[in-house]
């Protein structure tokens, strides 16, 4: 069974991020790049399936990212994935959700797959739109927001989170699932894993190599950022030292009354 995990390289989650006013894109230089934290849950889910299924199951990492991100992709290999496919092409710069999903789908189809696992969202653009679009372009069932996943042969059973609770769903492979943080606790790479990852293959492909037959970069994007504005910063408000509970609560109630919130 071939399991593919899509990952994104994002700026460190603790860094203050900014957008370049001329390109209207996120500045990715001068900020440490990390694996999108949500994707670690997808990698862990894939590794657990592989450990359970055994045999010839493989876990391949797929990403659309500049080649400079190779060492970050290696962290996913250190966790235990078998190999990685990086689509690195200057022509992919400035891709929107449409372009990214389309390119990943083409590369995944060309590589072959039984199951694709994605994180729920990225920490930089946070739109959560990629998994659905990717399932569409792959033409397979897309089961999103999965918190529990079971595979029995090609029969897939999952529990999906919903806004009001959860749903149990079932489908058959090939399929795509996106997983939430509730599904597992991602492992840390072991020393053996880190050493082993150095010998694992990271195939770097151009868009053409990956079978992407349409332009996908900023010119081809279906959306265009037309303006950037910095909203007024939130100023420092009042700080009130409450002598006791009644004083603290009274202060809050008065404040909420002033703002007509109670």
């Amino acid at each position, binding site marked *: 069974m071939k399991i593919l995990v899509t990952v994104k390289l994002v700026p460190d*989650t*603790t860094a203050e991020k*900014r*957008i370049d006013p001329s390109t209207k894109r996120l500045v990715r230089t001068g900020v440490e790049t990390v694996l999108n934290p949500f994707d670690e849950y997808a990698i862990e889910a894939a590794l657990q399936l592989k450990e359970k299924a055994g045999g010839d199951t493989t876990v391949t990492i797929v990403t659309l990212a500049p080649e400079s991100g190779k060492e970050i992709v290696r962290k996913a290999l250190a966790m235990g994935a078998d190999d990685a496919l990086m689509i690195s092409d200057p022509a992919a710069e400035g891709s*929107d*959700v*449409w372009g990214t999903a389309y390119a990943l789908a083409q590369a995944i189809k060309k590589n072959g797959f039984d199951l694709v696992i994605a994180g729920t969202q990225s*920490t930089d*653009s946070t*739109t*959560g*739109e990629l998994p659905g*679009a990717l*399932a*569409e372009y792959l033409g397979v*069932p*897309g089961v999103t*927001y999965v918190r529990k996943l079971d595979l029995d042969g090609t029969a897939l059973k999952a529990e*999906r*989170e*919903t*806004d*009001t*609770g*959860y*749903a*149990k*769903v*079932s*489908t058959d492979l090939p399929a795509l699932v996106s997983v939430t943080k*509730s599904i597992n606790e991602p492992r840390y790479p072991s020393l053996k894993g880190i050493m082993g990852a150095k010998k694992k293959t990271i195939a770097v492909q151009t868009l053409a190599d990956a079978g992407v037959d349409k332009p996908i970069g900023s010119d081809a994007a*279906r*959306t*265009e*950022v*037309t303006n950037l*504005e*910095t*909203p007024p910063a*939130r*100023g*420092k*408000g*009042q*700080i*009130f030292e*409450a*002598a*006791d*509970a009644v*004083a*603290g*609560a009274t*202060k*809050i*109630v008065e*404040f*909420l009354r002033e703002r007509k*919130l*109670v």
Partner: protein
Amino acid sequence: MRDVIIFVEHVQGQPRRVSLEIASKAKEIATALGGTVHAIVLGKNASAAAEALKAYPVDTIHVAEDPDIDAYFIDPSVDYLEAAAKAVGPALVLVPYTMIGRDLGSRLAARLDAGQTADVTDVVVDGGKVACVSPKLGGTVLTSCAFKGDYGIAAIRPNSFKAAQSAGAGTIVQLEKPAGKTYRIKVDEEVVEAAGELGVEEASTVIAGGRGVGGPEPFSTILKDLADSLGGSVGASRAAVDAGWIGHGHQVGQTGKTISPNLYIAVGISGAIQHKVGMRTASTIVAINKDGTVPIGEFADLLVVGDLFSIVPELSKQIRAGHS
């Protein structure tokens, strides 16, 4: 792009508030574009939701109650939406930025090869052109985004617009079942855990607890009680979720949800950058913390320094007394 199509999410025939907010805004957009508003309502009890929608400014309400819509996850809904969008023609499609709205919007965008923007808090029409405004990087930047093709899909953040009643034509049309489709994701069981309670994304008041809350119990007692007294929902910081005190669905912040409630009360939350990006666009932020030097003091409208375990119950009591 002239008409506006809205996908109406409903719970057992009751439209969700975010969908009513979208309906109200959609009319304004359609009027500016010289088009009309088409609402799409799907699934069991869709007819009841359509009736409720008549009090809002929609021109045409497209309804389908096909049992496949609830028996199978997402795909039937995408097929109906796609068919309706193609029948209407070039349009701006508005979906709620909720779990189901994100899925539907992204799938429809792929079907139509259209652009999509997420987490939209305003839609501006200028000279016949549509721009969708979204806060990015945790609200530090507002981006305006335009669509290049015939269709554009925007997922609208709850609490961005006011739901204002004003009846439109509200003509109900039954959608035809898309032909030749087979569905592959069977819904075996649907479990509603938080009946009647709004998720943190949609709630207009959120009471969130952090590390300072110290354990799971206050989330279901004093925080829940304060939320109930204000008609709000309970949220949490990452520290509280990672400690297992409350479910991930309640998490606000970079690895949780980004929300814009009218009122956010942060209890025992220090307000590190990862949390701040998820809630800094709340209209009013009140914090309760034992430490007066916590980062949240730099951007909260009011920080009350004191013992949360006694202030929170007292606050619920005073709010209830004020209402009675």
